């Protein structure tokens, strides 16, 4: 292995470490990453640590308050709320965790492609993208879900497809910015092939923007997913999911608020965590140049 290519491999690893360190050095990054990491760990190990079976209904204990046996009380069919809260993020994280990278990758590739191609095709494509974006998100997704069902094999592609569309615009804009710069002209003048220019000059510079965008996409997708679950179009019962739990517990809120508070805190903390991380990441990568976000 030559010295040059060795330095190459090291460079990627080094950069990741440097960026992570930068993110953690900021209060927003530290809090955000911790929250996200905590949620991810929880999602992974929760089935091993939950005290009860999430399906176990107990008609004698419906809507009972928090006590030593049930730390967050029980829901309207007697299931342990604490258990369900711990498990509630698994489905959401699975679905969005798979759909987000797909969305960013497909949207990014299409956006970069059209950003490079330019011309008439690009203009037409942008009209189509705009047209898609003009439709209400719920409509787009519900139409597919209602027709094909709510299993994850429908949810993942649906979310990935519709959330990839805005990425097209962003990737295209980033591509335009990079292509205008001299080092790309220099590569062209040298006679490098198109694919080589995309791979070596364009992608590394556009990837930063896409990464930050990816983080934001993830948080919006989680919002959408939990909204869908809330409306009854996402996860199917009895799978525990925070959105669904809030929907179920809503009616009993006046006298049994714990059924709502648990999932509310869980869901909010995850989404806030992702957003804070995205903010810190943008600053660390130098995308938020004016260092505008407050923390």
């Amino acid at each position, binding site marked *: 292995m030559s010295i040059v290519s060795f330095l190459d491999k090291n460079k990627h690893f080094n950069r990741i470490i440097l960026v992570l360190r930068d993110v953690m050095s900021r209060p927003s990054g530290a809090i955000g990453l911790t929250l996200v990491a905590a949620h991810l760990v929880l999602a992974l190990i929760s089935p091993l640590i939950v005290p009860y079976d999430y399906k176990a209904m107990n008609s004698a204990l419906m809507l009972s308050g928090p006590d030593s046996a049930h730390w967050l009380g029980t829901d309207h069919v007697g299931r342990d709320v604490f258990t369900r809260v711990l498990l509630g993020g698994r489905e959401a994280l699975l679905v969005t965790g798979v759909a987000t990278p797909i969305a960013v990758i497909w949207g990014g590739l299409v956006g970069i492609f059209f950003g490079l191609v330019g011309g008439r095709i690009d203009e037409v494509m942008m*009209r189509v993208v705009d047209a898609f974006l003009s439709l209400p998100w719920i409509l787009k997704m519900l139409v597919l879900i209602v027709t094909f069902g709510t299993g994850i094999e429908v949810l993942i592609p649906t979310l990935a497809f519709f959330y990839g569309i805005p990425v097209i615009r962003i990737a295209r804009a980033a591509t335009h910015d990079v292509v205008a710069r001299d080092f790309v002209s220099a590569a062209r003048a040298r006679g490098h092939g198109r694919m080589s220019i995309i791979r070596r000059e364009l992608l590394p510079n556009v990837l930063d923007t896409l990464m930050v965008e990816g983080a934001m996409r993830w948080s919006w997708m989680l919002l959408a997913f*939990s909204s869908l679950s809330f*409306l009854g179009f996402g996860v199917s019962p009895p799978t525990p999911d925070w*959105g669904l739990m809030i929907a179920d517990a809503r009616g009993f809120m006046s006298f049994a*608020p714990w059924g709502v508070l648990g999932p509310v805190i869980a869901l909010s903390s995850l989404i806030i965590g992702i957003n804070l991380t995205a903010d810190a990441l943008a600053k660390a990568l130098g995308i938020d140049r*004016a260092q505008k976000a407050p*923390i």
Partner: protein
Amino acid sequence: MLRMLIRRLFLGAVTVAIVSLIIFSGVELLPGDACTAFLEREAKGKLLENCREAQGLNRPAIERYVEWAASAVQGDLGVSANGQKSISELVGDRLKNSLLLAACSLALGVPLSIFLGVVTGLWRDRPIDLTLSTLAIFAMTIPEFVSATVLILLFSIWLGWLPGIVLTPAHAPLSEFFPEILLPVLVLTMVMTAHILRMVRSSVIEVMAGDYVQMATLKGVPHWRIVFRHALPNALLPAINVVALTIAWLLGGVVVIEVVFNYPGLGRMMIDSISDRDLPVVQAIALIVATVYVGVNLSADLLTMIANPRLRTMHMRRK
């Protein structure tokens, strides 16, 4: 200038046309049609054929598209799946309700968010900025149904100040929606303000750190005049676009709020008609919302062009 206007209108119309194509083909591609929805389990054999013929569903797609599009342009959106009611009537009610909700939220939210955005931008990193920005992050990231639920818990159940649910029927006159509309408006305002505030803040900071503000300072222009005469006209330009997006969102994207509060708007209708497979209604709503979105964006673009001298003047002598 006029050329630009015509070009934009043209492009907007093209976008709406493409949307209508997408909507129509999308609906076409789905299994089932208005008849299968209407007849449900009896949708087979002769009954199905007759229904389709009566509805004109056995004609080629292009023909149906053109007919639908042509009448839509004239304001006739057809009839609902069960063939009973005029869609225009049905949608009309819901649309007016959604407009009311949107208008109230905008009236409250836009001035508030711009004001707060400017304040946090001018006093960046001070206590007021940190407080408001943190609140904004919360308002933005917490799902609407969560904030709605929490607010209902707070204002309706614990404090009992406001009704937590809307019981007024869809066709009622607008005035009857008060005070039930207040909590939904509050929630929407909260979310909207968070987004616009962040954006305005960012823009204000950028402009205040810029060259011409520094020059005005060095020219001895009093600070407040710099803010109002030099900085804000530039800093608020991007707000036009964000407000446009917000308007579009208020009309088509607030389904969850409508469900939580039982508000009879377009969003609820969307869900109901999708669940009922009432495809003509779905098509119609999609078209309306999309048209509003395109129209609002167009207005925002034009407004920006008017407000931004650089875009306004076509003949530029630059070196």
